[in-house]
């Protein structure tokens, strides 16, 4: 009998698996549909406002997060459960389920890049076309706050894909991804809407997608909702990591003391970042200048 060789696994193998999963995601029709819809809807919105500058610009990342992020949940969940049909062959290969799950986290790369492209296009268009005068935007807000709010779009897209991986690992019933999408929307809406116009609006920030800027108010102003968008971005990223760890938790072999400690550390980081997001930054909702007539460039 031959001696058993122990080939080096490590990073190269993981990278190869991650590339495969990222490619599968980038070609997934549901994800592609979401990307196309995001840009088409943005284009239609801008087309109707041509010549007046871009209105409600800081709420537009929501379009990318909605179309790309939510379809990423479905696409990633399907990719995660798609190999279940070949489970016996796949599970008797040396790679563990946790390793396969970690590779599936790479489905977040195309989602993140699509969200990033959406934001870049938005910023370029805002530079070219201008924004309406009452906007919260560069010049009226610190740059880091604007960038933080804009980057919530790609991070939400990344989070959508990772939530899909989590869903695909734990929920095996038909339509589970759709249930996750509905739950995400319901939690995001019900979790923050009642608090938005109260003096404690910063505590809405526990939800996975928080609003920082309203659309136009009746008097032509816009409201910047309280909270620290930079810390909130960090909180979103911590939730992304928790989604990956939660998906990996499905594999019993991974539940080592070190892994448990890692989960606890990330969960603690998420709590700290949430607390920072809620207690630092803007403490009150602030209205912009009530001057909707002009266009600033």
């Amino acid at each position, binding site marked *: 009998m*031959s001696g058993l060789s122990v*080939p080096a696994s490590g990073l190269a193998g993981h990278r*190869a*698996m991650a590339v495969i999963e990222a490619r*599968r995601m980038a070609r997934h029709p549901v994800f592609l549909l979401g990307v196309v819809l995001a840009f088409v809807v943005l284009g239609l919105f801008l087309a109707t406002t041509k010549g007046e500058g871009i209105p409600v610009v800081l709420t537009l990342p929501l379009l990318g997060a909605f179309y790309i992020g939510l379809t990423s949940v479905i696409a990633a969940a399907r990719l995660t459960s*798609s190999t279940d049909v070949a489970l*016996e*062959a796949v599970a008797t*290969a040396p790679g563990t389920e946790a390793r396969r799950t970690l590779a599936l986290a790479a489905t977040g790369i195309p989602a993140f890049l699509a969200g990033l492209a959406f934001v870049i296009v938005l910023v370029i268009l805002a530079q070219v076309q201008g924004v309406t005068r009452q906007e919260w935007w560069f010049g009226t807000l610190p740059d880091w706050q604007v960038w933080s709010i804009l980057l919530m779009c790609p991070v939400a897209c990344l989070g959508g894909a990772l939530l899909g991986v989590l869903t695909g690992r734990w929920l095996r019933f038909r339509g589970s991804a759709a249930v996750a999408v509905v739950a995400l929307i319901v939690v995001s809406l019900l979790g923050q809407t009642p608090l938005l116009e109260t003096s404690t609006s910063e505590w809405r920030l526990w939800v996975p997608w928080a609003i920082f800027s309203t659309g136009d108010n009746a008097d032509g102003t816009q409201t910047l909702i309280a909270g620290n968008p930079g810390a909130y971005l960090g909180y979103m990223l911590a939730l992304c990591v928790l989604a990956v760890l939660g998906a990996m938790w499905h594999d019993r072999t991974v539940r080592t003391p070190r892994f448990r400690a890692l989960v606890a550390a990330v969960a603690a980081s998420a709590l700290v970042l949430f607390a920072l997001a809620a207690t630092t930054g803007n403490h009150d909702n602030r209205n912009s200048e009530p001057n909707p007539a002009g266009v600033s460039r």
Partner: protein
Amino acid sequence: MNQSRSTVELTGVGKRYGRKPALSDVDLAFDHGVTGLLGPNGAGKTTLLRIVATSIPADSGQVRLFGRDPHHSHAEVTAVRRQLGYLPQELGYPSDMTAFGFVEYVAVLKEWNDRERRTREVRRVLDLVGLTGQATTRVSRLSGGQRRRVGLAQALLGDPLLVVLDEPTTGLDPAQRADLRRTLSTLGHRSTVLLSTHQTEDVAALCERVIVLAGGTVRFDGAVTDLVATAVGRVWLADEPGDDALVSWRTGTGRHHVVGGTPPAGAAPAEPTLEDAYLLMLGPDAQRLGAPA
């Protein structure tokens, strides 16, 4: 570690599904060469293969693969799986994957980390199963036989030292089955190949050793020729079906092939096949199977 001499050693292995025993006190050992598993549906063939393929643990007894206990630790099972190729009885495929993509996916799981080497290996096994021309076709668009060959290709990645194939010939046409026999016979020179099948002619053509399972127990374990020899003098060609024959059927020549029982009047002894011997080995169980296809 590596104290035992056989690639696969099963000692007193048992497995139950609920109250129903699937395997009872099975003692078997396998070394290089091709071994065929025969048995009726529900005999325990798939359970046995899944245990050997580390897919499920045995409930009782001892399983040693390459001298290791695959369920002792993660390191042990990983070491075993690095030398294992497994084609399950029912293998589905992700709908978005091509034949090449699926086999490459498994190759990555089997730690073919270098992209160039991996690509070469995937092409080699696809060529081995005659799917070079369909490499870029989605598996969902392939025929049943072609899909089966995709599954076979992933099992052959890296020429594993232990190859476990559960009904590999299902859905293959005669030419493809001949190709598979050639591939497996070559593989059997250096590897331990276990295959279960309902096709006795595959076992007769390919295997040096045959095991007949029924009711979760081993009914026969030995050379194919030895199993065939058990049927000598118990198979006839006759003008009438035997009254007390185990099974009989009318052949294309108009005469009856009679297996077991007392020879009908005017019966001429016939050369037994592995199938005859298998049916006689099963005894009354064979009557439930009826005449073979």
